[in-house]
């Protein structure tokens, strides 16, 4: 923080004098040197006594430090929020999978990872469409990072979910943004923030629907290329972005679904319940940046009965609210997730 922002406690002349000797921010003032040393470098014409200066530095330290939060207050807040955990309007529609994560109601940032064809986009799409069908005045933002979104899949799934009559209204409330790099995603989030903060100003009969859910389809090509073994900048960008997503979800009560790809790991993955040589991409720390990591994989057809359905397993690798190493089976039939 800049020293000008502490203005009632440090006068403007002192700030200017400090700037001239190279002390510009609060970290410079508090950590660069002993207050007495800094005071001795200040010009004597300022008319400031050492005692006043030390008092000012103490005040700056008090303001600049982080505000504490107490554990018992946090627990109370968490318990009081628990009553609408199973609110019906943000659910996938497969009860066993919804129970794995304790529902997907806001605010939540969930990572869904798996190999190609394991059902990640299908799961996200089903969640989104069910929500849009059930809540007529909400909208969803789908951030597509590789141009893979096909509107035909949406109408196919809407048919399967049995919602032809309202299908056009649903399609209008699903907004798709194309973002090929992380700066573009920041731009999209920024304009979303602006539109969400502008909503209380509009009086009357809710014109534009409020966004309740964001899906980032494939965050791997956005963040993956920046991660490198020699520099930590990519990792810093990743952490900052996920942190921002978290504060975004908390501030505006959103459910954010992040779809991640998979990479190879040899020997087998110790986190998984079933034997596999794949793990979620973006490194070991990515799972700690979200509330829960759901791993989807397709079971080999010998255990599935027949028809058009493929058998899949959803496992929880890590979750803040429910137990991990729990799993559930589900089938994908005609593109729609159903119970196994």
């Amino acid at each position, binding site marked *: 923080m800049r020293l000008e922002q502490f203005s009632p406690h440090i006068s403007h002349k002192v700030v200017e004098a400090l700037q001239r000797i190279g002390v510009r921010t609060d970290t410079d003032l508090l950590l660069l040197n002993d207050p007495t040393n800094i005071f001795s470098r200040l010009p004597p014409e300022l008319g400031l006594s050492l005692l006043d200066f030390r008092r000012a530095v103490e005040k700056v330290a008090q303001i600049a430090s982080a505000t504490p939060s107490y554990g018992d207050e946090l627990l109370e807040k968490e318990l009081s929020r628990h009553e609408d955990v199973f609110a019906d309007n943000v659910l996938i529609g497969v009860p066993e999978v919804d129970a794995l994560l304790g529902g997907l109601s806001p605010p939540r940032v969930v990572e869904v990872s798996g190999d190609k*064809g394991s059902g990640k986009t299908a799961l996200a799409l089903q969640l989104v469409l069910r929500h849009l069908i059930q809540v007529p005045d909400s909208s969803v933002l789908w951030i597509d990072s590789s141009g*893979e979104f096909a509107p035909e899949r949406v109408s196919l799934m809407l048919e399967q979910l049995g919602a032809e009559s309202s299908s056009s209204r649903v399609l209008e409330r699903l907004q798709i943004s194309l973002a090929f790099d992380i700066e*573009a995603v920041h731009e999209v989030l920024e304009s979303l923030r602006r539109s969400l903060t502008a909503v209380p100003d509009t009086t009357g009969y809710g014109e534009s629907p409020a966004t309740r859910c964001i899906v980032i389809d494939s965050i791997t090509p956005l963040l993956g290329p920046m991660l490198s073994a020699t520099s930590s900048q990519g990792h810093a960008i990743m952490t900052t972005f996920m942190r921002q997503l978290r504060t975004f979800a908390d501030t505006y009560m959103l459910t954010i679904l992040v779809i991640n790809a998979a990479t190879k790991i040899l020997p087998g993955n110790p986190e998984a319940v079933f034997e596999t040589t794949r793990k979620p991409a973006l490194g070991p720390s990515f799972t700690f940046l979200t509330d829960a990591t759901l791993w989807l994989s397709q079971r080999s057809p010998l255990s599935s009965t027949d028809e058009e359905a493929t058998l899949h397993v959803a496992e929880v690798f890590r979750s803040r609210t429910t137990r991990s190493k729990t799993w559930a089976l589900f089938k994908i039939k005609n593109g729609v997730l159903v119970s196994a």
Partner: protein
Amino acid sequence: MSDRLLSTLSLPPPTLSALAGAGYETVNDLSNATPQQLSKDLNIPLPASQAVFSATRPSVALPMTQSAAAMMGTTKQYSTGCPPLDRLLGGGLKRGFILEINGPPGSGKEQIAAIAVRAFVECKQEVLFVDMQNMVLPATIKRTMMRNPTANSDGMDLVRYLAFHTTAELVVFMRNLTAYLEAYPATALLVLNSLAFPFQADMALKERYAILDRLKQTLARACTSLGLTVIITSQLVTKMLESHGEPGSAPPASKATMIPSFASNNFPSGRTYRVIIVPQTRMTGVMRLLSSPTHVPNRAPAFAGEEPYQRIRGVIS
């Protein structure tokens, strides 16, 4: 203003570190500064501080966004001029979609591209024809268009022709494509003829992936925001198989198979139809739809549709 962190803006690193060193963390901190003040304060040149302010300026609407209804709204289907292909595509090629045609030499893919140009010109749409192997000359396009008895020579004004064959020229073309399309907004069709040719040069795998990735992004952007339709023709490559069908080096009299040069993930899969022409006799064969926007990968059958065709005197039906 907002609490957006300044480090998330796309500014050059020296500017970002100067901002961080002076204690500016979020966009809110810049709200009472002017570019001149900032440039003096941070000791950076004036253009750099102006760039900071223009990067923080809010944009009017969600960038590159449309609703799913708008995406589906463009239902105008253009016939490709080739009935079996139209049947495979479910009626025709929609605006904003990409069609990739693979096939062995002599199977008629360039001919299909030329016929498609004619179909678009008849609907009064402008076309940009890019030829990368000198397979289709402007004279050929003119001849194809003149075959239609009702054609007039004004049709050729709607077609623009570009030829190149090196990888560097391809990269330059991709970089300029968006600006070109903004200068000529009536361009409805882009034909990339023999796209596999510039990639046949000896290049490192990383380079190939980088160029393909760039191509995918450029095409996806152009198709989504400008409604550009793209037809790509590409050659097949030969892959040698050992006698028991495993990929490997080739002892004599082993099998070889011809496969498409590009994979499904080289094109935005939500907007691409991939077709392969399989000639079975001199005049007849089948066309197969390898992938389409609704075709889910990794699921049998291996292709999504098949249509027989026959070629009589150069006319495919």
